[in-house]
C-alpha cells in the first residue's frame, strides 16, 4: 500500500495538501488542471520533492526522508529517459548494474528479452538519437521493466506520440505493470488515456489531492472541480 498522510507541500504561492492510499498492482490516473500540482504529487512520491509536513509510506515502511534513489520507484519522464550518448543496451544495462559494471551472460539475456517484449529486438546497439520517438519510449519502458520496482510513475508519458502509438504504448505499460504486479501512477491531461488505462482516478485541483475514485464512476459523475476545469479548458 502506498500511503500519503496529511501531505503538505508549499509550492510557489500555493500549497498541495491531502491524504491518499493506493493498493499495489492498481493503475491510477492523476487528472487535474495545469499547475494544480499533478507533477508535484509524482515528485513527492519519487522523492524529488521533500514534504513540508506529512508522511509517505510503502507497505508499512516510512519513505518520507528517503532520497529518490532509495525508494522502490521507477519513473518515465516526459522526455530524457535515456542517455543520448549511450547505446540502448548500455542504457538498459544501467537498470541492472547501476554501478556501471559489465554485463553478465544473464544480463544480456534479460536485456534482449526485455527488448523483445517491447518490440525492439535487435536494436540494442543503436543510440537513442537514431530511434523514432515511439521506439525511444519502448526502450525506456524496457528499462522500467528491467528495474522491476513495485511502483511505476509516469509523468505525462508518450505525450509526443500520435494517438494510435500512444494507445499501443499504454497497452504495453499495462502488460509490463501486470507482469511486475506494480502500482502505476500516471499523470495525464487526456481523459481518454485515463479511461483506457486506469482503474482509479485521483483528481488534483485547487491545491488538494482528492481521494481515488473508480474510473467509470469518476467519469459517470465527475466532481465539480473537474467539471470546472474541463469546462474552462474547453472554452
Amino acid at each position: 500500500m502506498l500511503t500519503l498522510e496529511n501531505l503538505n507541500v508549499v509550492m510557489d504561492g500555493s500549497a498541495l495538501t491531502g491524504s491518499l492510499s493506493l493498493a499495489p498492482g492498481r493503475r491510477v490516473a492523476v487528472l487535474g488542471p495545469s499547475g494544480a500540482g499533478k507533477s508535484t504529487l509524482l515528485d513527492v512520491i519519487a522523492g524529488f520533492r521533500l514534504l513540508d509536513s506529512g508522511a509517505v509510506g510503502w507497505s508499512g515502511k516510512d519513505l518520507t526522508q528517503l532520497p529518490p534513489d532509495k525508494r522502490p520507484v521507477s519513473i518515465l519522464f516526459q522526455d530524457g529517459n535515456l542517455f543520448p550518448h549511450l547505446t540502448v543496451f548500455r542504457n538498459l544495462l544501467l537498470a541492472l548494474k547501476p554501478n556501471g559494471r559489465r554485463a553478465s551472460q544473464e544480463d544480456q539475456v534479460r536485456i534482449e528479452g526485455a527488448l523483445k517484449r517491447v518490440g525492439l529486438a535487435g536494436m540494442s546497439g543503436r543510440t537513442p538519437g537514431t530511434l523514432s520517438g515511439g521506439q525511444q519510449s519502448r526502450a525506456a519502458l524496457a528499462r522500467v521493466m528491467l528495474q522491476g520496482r513495485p511502483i511505476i510513475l509516469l509523468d505525462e508519458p508518450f505525450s509526443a506520440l500520435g494517438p494510435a502509438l500512444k494507445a499501443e504504448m499504454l497497452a504495453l505499460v499495462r502488460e509490463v505493470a501486470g507482469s511486475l504486479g506494480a502500482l502505476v501512477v500516471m499523470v495525464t491531461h487526456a481523459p481518454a488515456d485515463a479511461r483506457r488505462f486506469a482503474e482509479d482516478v485521483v483528481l488534483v485541483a485547487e491545491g488538494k489531492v482528492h481521494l481515488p475514485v473508480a474510473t467509470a464512476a469518476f467519469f459517470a459523475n465527475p466532481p465539480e472541480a473537474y467539471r470546472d476545469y474541463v469546462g474552462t479548458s474547453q472554452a
Partner: protein
Amino acid sequence: MAQRAVAITAALVLALLTLGPIAAVLVRSGGLGAFRPGDLEALQFTIWQALLSGFFSVALAIPVARALARRHFWGRSLLVSLLGAPFILPVIVAVMGLIAVFGQNGLVNTVMAALGGPKLDIYGLHGVILAHVFFNLPLATRMLLQAWLAIPGERFRLAASMGLSPWGQFLTLEWPLIRRIAPGAFAVIFVICLTSFAVALTLGGGPRATTVELAIYQAMRFDFDLGRAATLAMLQLAMAVIAGMIALKLAPAQGFGTGRGRQVPRWDGRGAVPRICDTLWILAAAAFLLVPLALVVLRGFPGLMAGGGMGTWVAAKHSVMVALASTALCMLWALPLANRRGELLSVAAIAMSPLVLGTGLFLILRPFVNPFSMALPVTTVVNAMMALPFALRILRPEAEAVEQDFGRLRSTLRMTSLAWLRLVWLPRLRRPMGFAAGLTAALAMGDLGVIALFADPDRATLPLQVYRLMGAYQMEAAAGAALLLLILSFSLFWLFDRGGRVGADT
C-alpha cells in the same frame, strides 16, 4: 556522501594553497606592512586598467563569437583553435609580437607612414588595454562560443518558425546566454589583469602604469619588506574575491534545457548585412590576434633552425612534463569543484601574487625538503592551481547542465557515483573538458610562475630558458626558444581540444 568529501577536500587543498603561503610570509615578516603614498595611485590604476581590459575583451568577444557560431566556412575549426593562441603565449613573447605590429617601427606605423597618416603611439593606458585584450579576447570568445554552440538547435528552429526579428531573436536566445556567460568571463579577465605587471609597465610607457603587483615585486626583491608584500598581496586577493562575488551574483544559473543533441542548421543571419558584418568581425579578430603571432613565428624561425642549444631542448622536455602533469592534476581538482563556490574559491587563486605564492611555498617547504629539488613538482601544482579558474569557468556551466538534465534519471536508475562519473559525466563533458585540458596544458607550458624562485640549472622550463637566453644577449636563440614554446603549447592545446571534440557529437 563520498562525493561531498572529495569536493570538500579539493576545496580545502585549494584554500590552503592560497592562504598558506601568505600566512607563511606574514609569519616570517612578523606582521603587516604599511602602505606608501604611491600605493593608492597604483591601486587606482590597477583596478581601472583591469576593468577596462575586462570590459573590452568581453564586449568585443560577443560579436566575434556570434559570427563564429553561425558561420561555417573552410578552415573554421583551425581558425577557432588558432584564435586561442595569444592567451597561451608567454608574456614577454606576446609583448614583443605586439610591439612588432603596433610599435614605433611596427607594421601599422609602416603602413601609416606609407599612406602619410599620423604616427600611432602604442605606449599608454590604451597600450595596456590593447595588450590585455590581445591576451584575453580569445578566452572570452571561446567561453561565449562554447555556450553558443550549446544552445540546442531546436531553439533556433523554434525562433525561425516563429518568425522572430533579429532583435527579437537576440533578446530571446542570445541575450540570456550573454547574461549567463559574460559576467564570469569578465570576472576572470579582470582578475588576470589585476596581477599584470610586465605588460602594464612596458606598454603603459612608464611609472604612470604602475600596478600593485609591481609594488609587491619591489617590496619583495628590493626592499625585502615581506610584511608589505603580504599586505599588498592580500589587497589583490580581496579585489579578486569581490569581483568574483559580484560576477557570480550577476550571472543567472539556469541553462537552456536539453536538446536532442543534433546539429541543426541555423536559420538566422541570412541577409546580406549580417553576413558582411560577421565576415568583418571574423577578419578583424583574426588580423588582430594572428598578425602579431605570425611575427613571433617569423622572428623565431632563424633561432629555432640554429638549434637553440641543448639547454633549450632539455627545458622543453621539462615544460612538456610539467604541462602534462599540471593538466592531469588540474582536471582532477576541477571535477569536484565545478560549482558556484568552487569557482569563487578558484578565482581567488589566480589573484595570488606569484612572487608571494612562490616565497610562501619556499618558506613552507624549506624545513622539510630542499626546495630546489622540488622545483618541478611545485611548478606543476602551482600551474594547475593557476589554470583552475579557467578550467572551472569552462566546465561549470556544462557540468551543471548535465546534472540538471540527467540528475533525476540518475536517481531513478540508482546509479553509483563511479558509474555516473564514468558513463555519463565524463562522456557528456568531453568537449568542454578537452578545451579546459588544452588550455591548462598550454598555460602550464607558458607560465613562468614560481619556477624562477626555485629552479636550479638542470630544472629550467622553457619560459625561464627564454629569459635566461635574453639575459645572456642571445636574442635570436631566445626568439627561437619562444617559437618552440609557442609550437609546443599550441600543439598540446590542439591535441586536447581536438581530442575532446572528435566523436563528441552523438
